[in-house]
Protein backbone atom coordinates (compact mmCIF):
# COMPACT_ATOMS: atom_id res chain seq x y z
CA UNK A 1 0.00 0.00 0.00
CA UNK A 2 1.11 3.55 -0.62
CA UNK A 3 -0.09 6.79 0.87
CA UNK A 4 -1.02 10.05 -0.83
CA UNK A 5 -1.66 13.11 1.30
CA UNK A 6 -3.97 15.59 -0.36
CA UNK A 7 -3.53 19.13 0.96
CA UNK A 8 -6.49 21.18 -0.31
CA UNK A 9 -5.14 24.32 1.35
CA UNK A 10 -2.59 25.52 3.87
CA UNK A 11 -5.09 28.08 5.21
CA UNK A 12 -6.26 27.40 8.76
CA UNK A 13 -8.71 29.29 10.98
CA UNK A 14 -6.87 28.32 14.18
CA UNK A 15 -3.65 29.84 15.38
CA UNK A 16 -1.77 27.18 17.34
CA UNK A 17 1.42 28.49 18.94
CA UNK A 18 3.77 25.83 17.62
CA UNK A 19 2.18 25.14 14.24
CA UNK A 20 4.33 25.21 11.15
CA UNK A 21 1.82 23.55 8.83
CA UNK A 22 -0.39 26.51 7.89
CA UNK A 23 -0.06 29.66 5.85
CA UNK A 24 -2.22 32.76 5.45
CA UNK A 25 -3.87 33.56 2.11
CA UNK A 26 -2.94 30.19 0.65
CA UNK A 27 -4.71 28.84 -2.42
CA UNK A 28 -7.52 26.25 -2.24
CA UNK A 29 -7.63 23.07 -4.31
CA UNK A 30 -10.12 22.90 -7.16
CA UNK A 31 -11.92 19.63 -7.88
CA UNK A 32 -10.05 19.54 -11.20
CA UNK A 33 -6.88 18.59 -9.27
CA UNK A 34 -8.68 15.54 -7.86
CA UNK A 35 -9.67 14.49 -11.40
CA UNK A 36 -6.02 14.80 -12.38
CA UNK A 37 -4.92 12.81 -9.31
CA UNK A 38 -7.25 9.98 -10.37
CA UNK A 39 -5.92 10.06 -13.94
CA UNK A 40 -2.35 10.04 -12.66
CA UNK A 41 -2.73 7.24 -10.12
CA UNK A 42 -4.72 4.89 -12.37
CA UNK A 43 -1.46 3.76 -13.91
CA UNK A 44 0.99 4.75 -11.18
CA UNK A 45 1.21 1.71 -8.92
CA UNK A 46 -0.84 -1.47 -9.05
CA UNK A 47 -1.57 -1.69 -5.34
CA UNK A 48 -3.94 -0.22 -2.71
CA UNK A 49 -3.74 3.51 -2.07
CA UNK A 50 -4.72 5.45 1.03
CA UNK A 51 -5.53 9.16 0.89
CA UNK A 52 -5.22 11.55 3.81
CA UNK A 53 -6.77 14.99 3.52
CA UNK A 54 -4.47 17.29 5.45
CA UNK A 55 -3.80 20.97 5.75
CA UNK A 56 -3.80 23.69 6.90
CA UNK A 57 -7.43 22.91 7.58
CA UNK A 58 -8.75 20.58 4.87
CA UNK A 59 -12.45 21.23 5.61
CA UNK A 60 -11.94 24.78 4.29
CA UNK A 61 -12.28 23.16 0.84
CA UNK A 62 -15.99 22.83 1.65
CA UNK A 63 -18.76 20.25 1.46
CA UNK A 64 -19.12 20.45 -2.33
CA UNK A 65 -15.44 19.62 -2.78
CA UNK A 66 -15.67 16.45 -0.69
CA UNK A 67 -19.04 15.48 -2.16
CA UNK A 68 -17.30 15.30 -5.55
CA UNK A 69 -13.78 14.28 -4.48
CA UNK A 70 -14.65 11.21 -2.39
CA UNK A 71 -16.69 9.33 -5.04
CA UNK A 72 -14.27 10.46 -7.73
CA UNK A 73 -11.32 8.90 -5.88
CA UNK A 74 -13.24 5.86 -4.62
CA UNK A 75 -14.76 4.90 -7.96
CA UNK A 76 -11.93 6.15 -10.17
CA UNK A 77 -9.41 4.10 -8.22
CA UNK A 78 -11.67 1.15 -7.40
CA UNK A 79 -8.97 -1.34 -8.38
CA UNK A 80 -6.58 0.34 -5.93
CA UNK A 81 -9.11 -0.05 -3.09
CA UNK A 82 -8.81 3.65 -2.19
CA UNK A 83 -9.24 4.38 1.52
CA UNK A 84 -9.45 7.73 3.30
CA UNK A 85 -8.35 9.66 6.38
CA UNK A 86 -8.79 13.28 7.30
CA UNK A 87 -6.92 15.45 9.81
CA UNK A 88 -9.04 18.40 10.93
CA UNK A 89 -9.71 20.69 13.89
CA UNK A 90 -13.44 19.92 13.24
CA UNK A 91 -14.47 23.58 13.53
CA UNK A 92 -16.19 23.47 10.13
CA UNK A 93 -17.79 20.05 10.56
CA UNK A 94 -21.57 19.99 10.16
CA UNK A 95 -24.10 17.17 9.97
CA UNK A 96 -24.02 17.06 6.19
CA UNK A 97 -20.22 16.73 6.08
CA UNK A 98 -20.14 14.24 8.95
CA UNK A 99 -22.59 11.96 7.15
CA UNK A 100 -20.64 12.22 3.93
CA UNK A 101 -17.37 11.35 5.69
CA UNK A 102 -19.03 8.46 7.51
CA UNK A 103 -20.49 7.11 4.27
CA UNK A 104 -16.98 6.89 2.81
CA UNK A 105 -15.46 5.40 5.99
CA UNK A 106 -13.13 8.37 6.36
CA UNK A 107 -10.93 7.89 9.44
CA UNK A 108 -11.03 11.29 11.10
CA UNK A 109 -8.34 12.58 13.45
CA UNK A 110 -8.36 15.84 15.32
CA UNK A 111 -5.85 17.61 17.52
CA UNK A 112 -6.42 17.99 21.21
CA UNK A 113 -3.59 18.62 23.65
CA UNK A 114 -5.43 17.65 26.83
CA UNK A 115 -7.87 19.52 29.07
CA UNK A 116 -9.18 22.97 28.14
CA UNK A 117 -6.61 25.09 29.98
CA UNK A 118 -3.65 23.30 28.35
CA UNK A 119 -5.33 23.52 24.94
CA UNK A 120 -6.06 27.21 25.28
CA UNK A 121 -2.45 27.90 26.17
CA UNK A 122 -0.96 25.86 23.34
CA UNK A 123 -3.62 26.14 20.63
CA UNK A 124 -5.19 29.51 21.39
CA UNK A 125 -8.33 30.82 23.02
CA UNK A 126 -11.54 29.21 21.82
CA UNK A 127 -9.86 26.20 20.18
CA UNK A 128 -11.12 23.68 22.72
CA UNK A 129 -14.82 24.64 22.60
CA UNK A 130 -14.90 24.81 18.80
CA UNK A 131 -13.21 21.41 18.43
CA UNK A 132 -15.48 19.85 21.04
CA UNK A 133 -18.53 21.25 19.25
CA UNK A 134 -17.29 19.54 16.07
CA UNK A 135 -16.63 16.37 18.00
CA UNK A 136 -20.24 16.37 19.26
CA UNK A 137 -21.46 16.66 15.67
CA UNK A 138 -19.22 13.74 14.67
CA UNK A 139 -20.54 11.63 17.55
CA UNK A 140 -24.19 12.24 16.83
CA UNK A 141 -23.53 11.18 13.23
CA UNK A 142 -21.63 8.04 14.30
CA UNK A 143 -18.42 9.34 12.76
CA UNK A 144 -15.49 8.03 14.85
CA UNK A 145 -12.77 10.54 15.73
CA UNK A 146 -9.32 9.83 17.16
CA UNK A 147 -7.29 12.54 18.78
CA UNK A 148 -3.68 13.51 18.23
CA UNK A 149 -2.09 14.98 21.33
CA UNK A 150 0.91 17.24 20.76
CA UNK A 151 3.35 17.28 23.62
CA UNK A 152 5.49 20.39 23.90
CA UNK A 153 8.36 21.55 26.09
CA UNK A 154 5.59 22.95 28.31
CA UNK A 155 3.07 20.11 28.41
CA UNK A 156 5.65 17.34 28.85
CA UNK A 157 5.58 18.13 32.57
CA UNK A 158 1.80 17.73 32.67
CA UNK A 159 1.73 14.19 31.35
CA UNK A 160 -0.21 12.76 34.33
CA UNK A 161 -2.94 15.34 33.97
CA UNK A 162 -3.12 14.93 30.20
CA UNK A 163 -3.22 11.13 30.31
CA UNK A 164 -5.92 11.17 33.01
CA UNK A 165 -7.98 13.55 30.88
CA UNK A 166 -7.93 11.25 27.84
CA UNK A 167 -8.54 8.21 30.02
CA UNK A 168 -11.54 9.75 31.80
CA UNK A 169 -13.04 11.02 28.54
CA UNK A 170 -12.53 7.64 26.86
CA UNK A 171 -10.65 9.19 23.92
CA UNK A 172 -8.09 7.15 22.00
CA UNK A 173 -5.01 9.08 21.07
CA UNK A 174 -1.91 9.34 18.99
CA UNK A 175 1.15 11.16 20.27
CA UNK A 176 2.92 13.94 18.45
CA UNK A 177 6.05 15.71 19.66
CA UNK A 178 6.22 19.45 18.84
CA UNK A 179 9.10 19.71 16.38
CA UNK A 180 11.21 22.42 14.76
CA UNK A 181 10.28 23.37 11.19
CA UNK A 182 12.11 24.24 8.00
CA UNK A 183 9.50 26.96 7.42
CA UNK A 184 10.26 29.17 10.40
CA UNK A 185 11.29 29.33 14.02
CA UNK A 186 7.91 29.89 15.74
CA UNK A 187 7.75 26.28 16.85
CA UNK A 188 11.29 26.21 18.29
CA UNK A 189 10.45 27.31 21.87
CA UNK A 190 7.77 24.61 22.02
CA UNK A 191 9.82 21.82 20.47
CA UNK A 192 10.36 18.73 22.55
CA UNK A 193 13.97 17.60 22.82
CA UNK A 194 14.66 13.98 21.77
CA UNK A 195 15.67 13.13 25.35
CA UNK A 196 12.45 14.60 26.74
CA UNK A 197 10.42 12.81 24.07
CA UNK A 198 12.12 9.51 24.95
CA UNK A 199 11.36 9.96 28.65
CA UNK A 200 7.80 10.93 27.84
CA UNK A 201 7.33 7.79 25.73
CA UNK A 202 8.63 5.56 28.51
CA UNK A 203 6.38 7.16 31.10
CA UNK A 204 3.33 6.99 28.85
CA UNK A 205 4.03 3.37 27.92
CA UNK A 206 3.97 2.44 31.60
CA UNK A 207 0.65 4.28 31.99
CA UNK A 208 -0.73 2.60 28.87
CA UNK A 209 0.21 -0.87 30.11
CA UNK A 210 -1.74 -0.16 33.30
CA UNK A 211 -4.85 0.87 31.36
CA UNK A 212 -4.78 -1.10 28.13
CA UNK A 213 -8.39 -2.17 28.45
CA UNK A 214 -9.56 1.42 28.74
CA UNK A 215 -7.59 3.41 26.18
CA UNK A 216 -5.65 3.00 22.96
CA UNK A 217 -2.42 4.88 22.26
CA UNK A 218 -1.65 3.81 18.72
CA UNK A 219 2.01 4.89 18.85
CA UNK A 220 2.83 2.14 21.32
CA UNK A 221 0.99 -0.47 19.29
CA UNK A 222 3.23 0.59 16.38
CA UNK A 223 6.45 0.67 18.40
CA UNK A 224 5.78 -2.82 19.78
CA UNK A 225 4.67 -4.23 16.43
CA UNK A 226 7.74 -2.71 14.75
CA UNK A 227 9.94 -4.27 17.44
CA UNK A 228 8.32 -7.67 16.91
CA UNK A 229 8.36 -7.82 13.12
CA UNK A 230 11.64 -5.91 12.79
CA UNK A 231 10.11 -3.39 10.45
CA UNK A 232 8.66 0.07 11.08
CA UNK A 233 4.88 0.13 10.72
CA UNK A 234 4.44 3.94 10.49
CA UNK A 235 6.10 6.44 8.18
CA UNK A 236 8.56 7.88 10.72
CA UNK A 237 9.86 4.35 11.42
CA UNK A 238 10.13 3.19 7.81
CA UNK A 239 11.68 4.00 4.45
CA UNK A 240 8.94 6.37 3.33
CA UNK A 241 10.44 7.38 -0.01
CA UNK A 242 7.96 6.67 -2.78
CA UNK A 243 5.45 5.10 -0.40
CA UNK A 244 4.32 8.49 0.89
CA UNK A 245 3.55 11.42 -1.39
CA UNK A 246 1.74 14.72 -0.95
CA UNK A 247 -0.16 16.85 -3.45
CA UNK A 248 -0.81 20.57 -2.96
CA UNK A 249 -3.68 22.75 -4.21
CA UNK A 250 -1.97 23.26 -7.57
CA UNK A 251 -1.20 19.57 -8.11
CA UNK A 252 2.47 19.78 -7.18
CA UNK A 253 3.83 16.52 -5.79
CA UNK A 254 6.11 16.38 -2.72
CA UNK A 255 7.72 13.56 -0.70
CA UNK A 256 5.42 14.35 2.27
CA UNK A 257 2.92 16.96 3.47
CA UNK A 258 5.65 18.51 5.60
CA UNK A 259 7.33 19.81 2.42
CA UNK A 260 4.17 21.25 0.83
CA UNK A 261 4.62 24.67 -0.82
CA UNK A 262 8.41 24.48 -0.50
CA UNK A 263 9.36 24.78 -4.21
CA UNK A 264 12.74 23.09 -3.79
CA UNK A 265 10.97 19.86 -2.76
CA UNK A 266 8.54 19.63 -5.70
CA UNK A 267 8.98 16.27 -7.42
CA UNK A 268 6.54 16.77 -10.26
CA UNK A 269 2.92 17.72 -10.99
CA UNK A 270 -0.15 15.55 -11.36
CA UNK A 271 -0.89 17.23 -14.73
CA UNK A 272 2.16 15.47 -16.16
CA UNK A 273 1.12 12.03 -14.79
CA UNK A 274 4.67 11.25 -13.65
CA UNK A 275 5.75 7.63 -13.31
CA UNK A 276 7.75 6.39 -10.33
CA UNK A 277 10.82 6.63 -12.59
CA UNK A 278 10.01 10.28 -13.38
CA UNK A 279 9.76 11.15 -9.68
CA UNK A 280 13.04 9.35 -9.04
CA UNK A 281 14.78 11.87 -11.29
CA UNK A 282 13.70 14.84 -9.13
CA UNK A 283 16.13 16.56 -6.78
CA UNK A 284 13.73 16.04 -3.85
CA UNK A 285 13.76 12.27 -4.42
CA UNK A 286 17.56 12.30 -4.52
CA UNK A 287 17.70 14.23 -1.24
CA UNK A 288 15.50 11.69 0.55
CA UNK A 289 17.44 8.83 -1.10
CA UNK A 290 20.66 10.33 0.30
CA UNK A 291 19.05 10.14 3.75
CA UNK A 292 18.36 6.42 3.28
CA UNK A 293 21.94 5.85 2.11
CA UNK A 294 23.23 7.70 5.16
CA UNK A 295 21.05 5.56 7.46
CA UNK A 296 22.38 2.36 5.85
CA UNK A 297 25.91 3.46 6.66
CA UNK A 298 25.53 5.36 9.96
CA UNK A 299 23.12 2.99 11.64
CA UNK A 300 24.44 -0.36 10.40
CA UNK A 301 25.63 -1.36 13.85
CA UNK A 302 22.47 -0.21 15.64
CA UNK A 303 20.29 -3.12 16.70
CA UNK A 304 17.18 -1.08 16.05
CA UNK A 305 17.99 -0.01 12.46
CA UNK A 306 15.26 -2.13 10.90
CA UNK A 307 12.69 -0.88 13.37
CA UNK A 308 13.16 2.85 12.80
CA UNK A 309 15.26 3.32 9.60
CA UNK A 310 16.82 6.48 11.02
CA UNK A 311 13.47 8.19 11.64
CA UNK A 312 12.04 11.01 9.55
CA UNK A 313 14.16 12.61 6.77
CA UNK A 314 12.37 15.95 7.26
CA UNK A 315 13.59 16.12 10.87
CA UNK A 316 17.09 15.25 9.67
CA UNK A 317 16.96 18.03 7.06
CA UNK A 318 15.77 20.52 9.67
CA UNK A 319 18.53 19.65 12.12
CA UNK A 320 21.20 20.49 9.52
CA UNK A 321 19.42 23.43 7.92
CA UNK A 322 18.31 21.74 4.75
CA UNK A 323 21.18 19.30 4.33
CA UNK A 324 21.42 15.59 5.02
CA UNK A 325 24.33 15.13 7.41
CA UNK A 326 22.79 13.10 10.22
CA UNK A 327 19.81 10.89 10.94
CA UNK A 328 16.63 12.22 12.58
CA UNK A 329 17.58 13.69 15.99
CA UNK A 330 14.56 11.81 17.40
CA UNK A 331 16.74 8.70 16.99
CA UNK A 332 17.62 9.23 20.65
CA UNK A 333 13.96 8.94 21.64
CA UNK A 334 13.40 5.91 19.41
CA UNK A 335 16.39 4.11 20.90
CA UNK A 336 15.11 4.87 24.40
CA UNK A 337 11.65 3.43 23.74
CA UNK A 338 12.92 0.36 21.85
CA UNK A 339 15.43 -0.35 24.63
CA UNK A 340 12.60 -0.08 27.13
CA UNK A 341 10.32 -2.38 25.12
CA UNK A 342 13.20 -4.87 24.92
CA UNK A 343 13.67 -4.68 28.70
CA UNK A 344 9.95 -5.18 29.40
CA UNK A 345 9.77 -8.10 26.93
CA UNK A 346 12.75 -9.80 28.58
CA UNK A 347 11.16 -9.34 31.98
CA UNK A 348 7.93 -10.91 30.75
CA UNK A 349 9.88 -13.88 29.36
CA UNK A 350 11.77 -14.38 32.59
CA UNK A 351 8.62 -14.23 34.70
CA UNK A 352 7.16 -16.96 32.49
CA UNK A 353 10.30 -19.05 32.72
CA UNK A 354 10.84 -18.74 36.42
CA UNK A 355 7.46 -17.91 37.97
CA UNK A 356 8.61 -18.82 41.46
CA UNK A 357 11.62 -16.47 41.42
CA UNK A 358 10.82 -13.93 44.16
CA UNK A 359 12.98 -11.28 42.48
CA UNK A 360 10.60 -11.19 39.52
CA UNK A 361 7.32 -9.40 40.12
CA UNK A 362 4.33 -10.86 38.27
CA UNK A 363 3.45 -9.16 34.99
CA UNK A 364 -0.11 -7.93 34.57
CA UNK A 365 -2.16 -9.81 32.03
CA UNK A 366 -1.91 -8.17 28.64
CA UNK A 367 1.64 -6.88 28.87
CA UNK A 368 4.10 -5.73 26.25
CA UNK A 369 3.91 -9.04 24.36
CA UNK A 370 0.20 -8.56 23.74
CA UNK A 371 0.92 -5.18 22.13
CA UNK A 372 3.35 -6.89 19.76
CA UNK A 373 0.60 -9.05 18.30
CA UNK A 374 -2.23 -6.53 18.58
Amino acid at each position, binding site marked *: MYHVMLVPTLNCPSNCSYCWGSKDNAGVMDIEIIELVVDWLKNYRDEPVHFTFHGGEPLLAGYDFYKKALPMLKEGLEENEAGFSLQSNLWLLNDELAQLLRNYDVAVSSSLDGPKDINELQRGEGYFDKTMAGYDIARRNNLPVNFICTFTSYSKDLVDEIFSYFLECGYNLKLHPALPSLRGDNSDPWALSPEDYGELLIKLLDMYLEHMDEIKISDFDHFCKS*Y*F*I*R*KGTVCVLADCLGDTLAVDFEGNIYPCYRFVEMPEYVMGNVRDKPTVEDLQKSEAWKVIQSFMDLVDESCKKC*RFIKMCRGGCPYNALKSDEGHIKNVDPQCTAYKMIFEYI*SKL*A*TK*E*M*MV*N*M*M*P*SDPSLKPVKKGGI*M*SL*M*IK
Partner: protein
Amino acid sequence: MPILITNIKNNLINEAIKHVQAEMVILILNKELQADIHIPHRIEYLDALDPEKSAQIRDILDHALEEGEVELALEADAMGLQILESAKNYEIFKKKNILIAKNGKLDTFLACLC
Protein backbone atom coordinates in the same frame (compact mmCIF):
# COMPACT_ATOMS: atom_id res chain seq x y z
CA MET B 1 21.12 -35.32 17.18
CA PRO B 2 21.06 -31.87 18.88
CA ILE B 3 18.27 -29.75 17.40
CA LEU B 4 18.01 -26.04 18.13
CA ILE B 5 14.60 -24.38 18.08
CA THR B 6 14.91 -20.64 18.18
CA ASN B 7 13.36 -17.30 17.27
CA ILE B 8 16.63 -15.33 17.49
CA LYS B 9 16.95 -13.02 14.51
CA ASN B 10 20.45 -11.58 14.87
CA ASN B 11 23.99 -12.98 14.87
CA LEU B 12 23.46 -14.45 18.33
CA ILE B 13 21.79 -17.30 16.49
CA ASN B 14 25.22 -18.49 15.34
CA GLU B 15 26.47 -18.37 18.92
CA ALA B 16 23.48 -20.44 20.01
CA ILE B 17 24.09 -22.98 17.23
CA LYS B 18 27.69 -23.33 18.36
CA HIS B 19 26.73 -23.48 22.06
CA VAL B 20 24.41 -26.47 21.65
CA GLN B 21 26.46 -27.92 18.75
CA ALA B 22 23.24 -28.07 16.78
CA GLU B 23 23.10 -30.30 13.75
CA MET B 24 19.65 -29.06 12.88
CA VAL B 25 18.17 -25.60 13.46
CA ILE B 26 14.53 -24.59 13.26
CA LEU B 27 14.09 -20.84 13.23
CA ILE B 28 10.50 -19.82 13.94
CA LEU B 29 9.60 -16.36 12.69
CA ASN B 30 6.51 -14.27 12.31
CA LYS B 31 5.15 -14.21 8.76
CA GLU B 32 5.21 -10.43 8.63
CA LEU B 33 8.92 -10.44 9.26
CA GLN B 34 10.96 -10.04 6.12
CA ALA B 35 13.99 -11.86 7.39
CA ASP B 36 17.38 -11.32 5.86
CA ILE B 37 18.90 -14.00 8.03
CA HIS B 38 21.15 -16.29 6.07
CA ILE B 39 21.59 -19.64 7.75
CA PRO B 40 21.54 -22.96 5.94
CA HIS B 41 18.71 -24.19 8.13
CA ARG B 42 14.98 -24.60 8.18
CA ILE B 43 12.93 -21.43 8.76
CA GLU B 44 9.28 -21.75 9.77
CA TYR B 45 7.06 -18.70 9.30
CA LEU B 46 3.92 -18.41 11.39
CA ASP B 47 1.09 -15.87 11.31
CA ALA B 48 0.60 -13.33 14.05
CA LEU B 49 0.23 -15.46 17.11
CA ASP B 50 -2.95 -16.61 18.72
CA PRO B 51 -3.87 -19.69 20.79
CA GLU B 52 -4.56 -21.74 17.64
CA LYS B 53 -1.10 -21.05 16.32
CA SER B 54 0.47 -22.55 19.43
CA ALA B 55 -0.71 -25.87 17.97
CA GLN B 56 1.63 -25.27 15.04
CA ILE B 57 4.53 -24.67 17.42
CA ARG B 58 3.64 -27.85 19.30
CA ASP B 59 3.70 -29.76 15.99
CA ILE B 60 7.19 -28.42 15.33
CA LEU B 61 8.27 -29.43 18.84
CA ASP B 62 6.67 -32.90 18.46
CA HIS B 63 8.53 -33.63 15.24
CA ALA B 64 11.81 -32.26 16.57
CA LEU B 65 11.56 -34.34 19.74
CA GLU B 66 11.06 -37.47 17.61
CA GLU B 67 14.24 -36.70 15.72
CA GLY B 68 16.63 -35.72 18.46
CA GLU B 69 17.44 -33.78 21.61
CA VAL B 70 15.81 -30.38 21.44
CA GLU B 71 17.35 -27.20 22.87
CA LEU B 72 15.64 -23.82 22.99
CA ALA B 73 17.33 -20.47 22.39
CA LEU B 74 14.82 -17.66 22.67
CA GLU B 75 14.65 -13.95 22.13
CA ALA B 76 12.20 -11.99 24.28
CA ASP B 77 9.30 -11.15 22.01
CA ALA B 78 5.80 -12.45 21.37
CA MET B 79 7.11 -15.43 19.39
CA GLY B 80 9.65 -16.31 22.07
CA LEU B 81 6.94 -16.23 24.70
CA GLN B 82 4.68 -18.40 22.55
CA ILE B 83 7.43 -21.00 22.07
CA LEU B 84 8.06 -20.95 25.80
CA GLU B 85 4.35 -21.41 26.55
CA SER B 86 4.20 -24.34 24.13
CA ALA B 87 7.28 -25.91 25.73
CA LYS B 88 5.44 -26.01 29.04
CA ASN B 89 3.37 -28.88 27.63
CA TYR B 90 6.41 -31.18 27.63
CA GLU B 91 7.95 -32.76 30.70
CA ILE B 92 11.34 -32.73 29.04
CA PHE B 93 11.55 -28.94 29.05
CA LYS B 94 10.81 -28.66 32.73
CA LYS B 95 14.02 -28.03 34.65
CA LYS B 96 15.98 -27.70 31.42
CA ASN B 97 18.54 -25.08 30.49
CA ILE B 98 17.22 -22.55 28.01
CA LEU B 99 19.32 -19.96 26.21
CA ILE B 100 17.97 -16.43 26.29
CA ALA B 101 19.20 -13.52 24.17
CA LYS B 102 19.41 -10.77 26.71
CA ASN B 103 21.16 -7.39 26.50
CA GLY B 104 22.97 -8.37 23.33
CA LYS B 105 24.38 -11.66 24.66
CA LEU B 106 23.26 -15.20 25.36
CA ASP B 107 22.52 -16.25 28.90
CA THR B 108 21.70 -19.73 30.14
CA PHE B 109 18.78 -20.09 32.50
CA LEU B 110 17.50 -23.09 34.32
CA ALA B 111 13.85 -22.69 33.50
CA CYS B 112 11.08 -23.89 35.73
CA LEU B 113 8.34 -24.43 33.18
CA CYS B 114 5.66 -25.57 35.52
